[in-house]
C-alpha cells in the first residue's frame, strides 16, 4: 500500500542541455548533489520513456554521456517528488550555473 501511495506522487519535467559540453564531469556532480537533497527517488533519461537512470549516482549518470542539445527527462517518486523534479530541471535550465 505504501508503495502505491508513493507511486501516486510521481512528478515529471524535462529540460534541454544547453551547456557547451553536455552532461560531463562537473554538471553531473552538481546534479547528483541536488538530487541527494531529496527523499524522493529521482531518475533521468534522454527519452520520455526511458531507460531511466538513478540521478543520485554519479557513476550511472556518466554512463549516459548526454551531449549538448539533448533533452533530459526527469521523473521522481515520493513525498517531495514535485519539488525534486523542479530543482533538477531548473539546474539543467540554469546551465548548471556554469556561465
Amino acid at each position, binding site marked *: 500500500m505504501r508503495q502505491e501511495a508513493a507511486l501516486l506522487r510521481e512528478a515529471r519535467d524535462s529540460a534541454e542541455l544547453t*551547456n*557547451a*559540453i*553536455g552532461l*560531463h*564531469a*562537473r554538471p553531473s*556532480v552538481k546534479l*547528483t*548533489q541536488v538530487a541527494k537533497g531529496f527523499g524522493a527517488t529521482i531518475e533521468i533519461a534522454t527519452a520520455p520513456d526511458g531507460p531511466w537512470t*538513478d540521478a543520485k*549516482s*554519479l*557513476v*550511472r549518470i*556518466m*554512463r549516459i*554521456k548526454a*551531449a549538448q542539445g539533448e533533452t533530459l527527462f526527469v521523473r521522481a517518486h515520493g513525498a517531495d517528488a514535485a519539488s525534486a523534479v523542479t530543482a533538477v530541471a531548473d539546474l539543467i535550465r540554469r546551465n548548471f*550555473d*556554469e*556561465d
Partner: protein
Amino acid sequence: MERRVPGVPAAPGLAGGLVQHLVQASGQPRSGATASLERAALDAAMLAVRAELEMLAGRLAGAEAAILGFQIALLDDPELVREAEARIAAGIPADRAWIEGMASEIRCLEAADDPHFRARATDLADLRDAVLAQLRPDGRAATILHPGCILAAEDLTPSLFLRMDWQRGSGIVLGGGSAASHVAMLARGRGIPMVVGVGKVWADLSGPVLVDGDAGLVIAGPAPDILARAAVPPVPASAPDVASGPALTRDGRRIAVEINVATLADLDGVSPESCDGIGLVRTEFLIEHALADEERQLEIYARLLGWARGLPVTIRTLDAGGDKPMRGYSVEGERNPFLGLRGLRLSLARPDLFRIQLRAILRAAALGPLRLLLPMVTTPAEVLAARDHIAKAAAGLAAEGRAFAIPPLGMMLEVPAAAMAAGRFAVDFYSIGTNDLAQFACAAARDDLRISGLADPRHPGLMAMIAHALKEARTLGRPVMLCGDAATDRATLETLLRLGLEGVSVAPPYLARVISEISMIDCGAIDRGTIDCGAIDRGTGDQP
C-alpha cells in the same frame, strides 16, 4: 640530427630540456584472503585515496580542486564498487576485482564520440591506479622530476600531475592524451607547455627536445639556437635568506617586489614576509570554474588576502581570450585572437559575469588592502565603462546592506597606443605587461617560434614607450609596476629601474633572485630621456 614530431597543442608555450620518461612501477598482485578481508582491504584503500584527494583539494582552488572533487564524488558513489564487490564475493582478490570492475566503466567512456567524455576515461583510470597503489603497496609511480625536464609518457593522470613538483621550464609530451583532458587544463593553468597525441614515438624520445605547445610540435635533437630560445634563466633552488626582506637598490632606492599568482598552489612555500604583496592575480585561472559563483570567488579572494596578512593583493579581472581561451566564455575561432575580443573587452561584452566578478572583488576589498586591475585596456572610454560597472556593483551591494569597499583601480599597459597615452586614463596605478606590449610593439606573435625572438623586451622602441608611460605616470603621481618576464632579465631590470620603475611582480621562484639583483643595481638619478641601447643592438644580431 633534428627530427620534428607533430602532435596536438594542449598547453601553450615553449619548453626545452632533457626527456624524462614516466616510470610506472607496478606492485605485486595480491594473493587474496577471505572475501570479507579482501572487501575490507578495498574499503580501506578507497578511504585512503579519498583522504589523500581531500587533502590535495584543500590546497588547490578553481579547476584543480574541481577535478579532484569529481574523483571524490565518484568514490562516494556505491555504484562504483558494485561490480568489484560481486567479484570479491566470488573469490577474486580485491586488486583484480577492482581492475575488472573499473574496466567496464572506463571502456564505456572511451567509446564515447565526444572527446570530453573520452577524456574523462583518464580520470577514472587515475582513480583506478590510485586505489590499486593502495592495494599493492609498492605500486606508486615515480614522480620525482628533474628540474626543467620534459616529461614523456603515454598518458598522464590529473592526480599524478598534481603530485609532481613542477618547475619552471618543464614541458610535457604525451603519446595519447587529449587537449580536452583535465591534465591539459592543469598544464595550461601552471603554464607548462604540453603537446599530446604524438603516438608511440614518445617512448623513443631521448636527450634534448623542444616542446612547442603553441604549434603542437616536438623537436627532437633541436639546433642549439632553437633550444636557447626556450631557455629560461636558471632559478636558484633555495632562496638565500639575505635576499628576503625589503628590496633596496645599491644606492638605497626602495623597489616593491611582489609575486604573480595563478593558483592557490603558487603560494605553497612562499611567505608574505619575503615579498611586498601580490602584484598580479591571474583570475582567468583561479576562478575558471566559478565565473558565475560570487560566493566562491569571494572565498578565493579572501584566502589570498588572508595569506598576504595586510600586504596588498592586486586582483586582475578576467584576462581570457587570445592565447587563454575559456570554453563557454571567450570567442572561438577568431582569425587573430591576440588582437581579438579578450581581456577587458570581453568583460564589457559579458556584463553579467563582469558584474559577478566585480561584486566579489568589492566585497573582498572590505577584508583587506586590495587593488583592482583591468587587462587589455585600449581607450579611456573602456576605463569609464568599467568604473560605471564598479559604481553599479557598489550601489547594489549597498542596497543589500553587504560590506564592501571600492579599491584603487589600475590598468595594464599592454596596448602600445594606451601606453603612449597613459595619462589620459582615469586610473590610480599602472602595471606594464611586457609580454603583450612587446609582441604588439614589435609586431611579432609571441606564439610563433620563427619570429618570437623579434619581440625582444629590450628593443629600444619598446623601452622608449615604457619610458614615456613612466614619465606621464610620474607627472600625475601614479605608481607603476611591471609584471612580466622582462623583470627576470638583469639588464632589462636595470634599464627599467633607471627609468624610474617603482616595482616589479614576478613568479614566486624568481623572488629571491630578483631581490638580490636589485641590491646590486645602482640606479643613480632617474634617467629621464636617454636609453642605453647597447644591449639591444648586441642582443638581436642573430635575428632573421
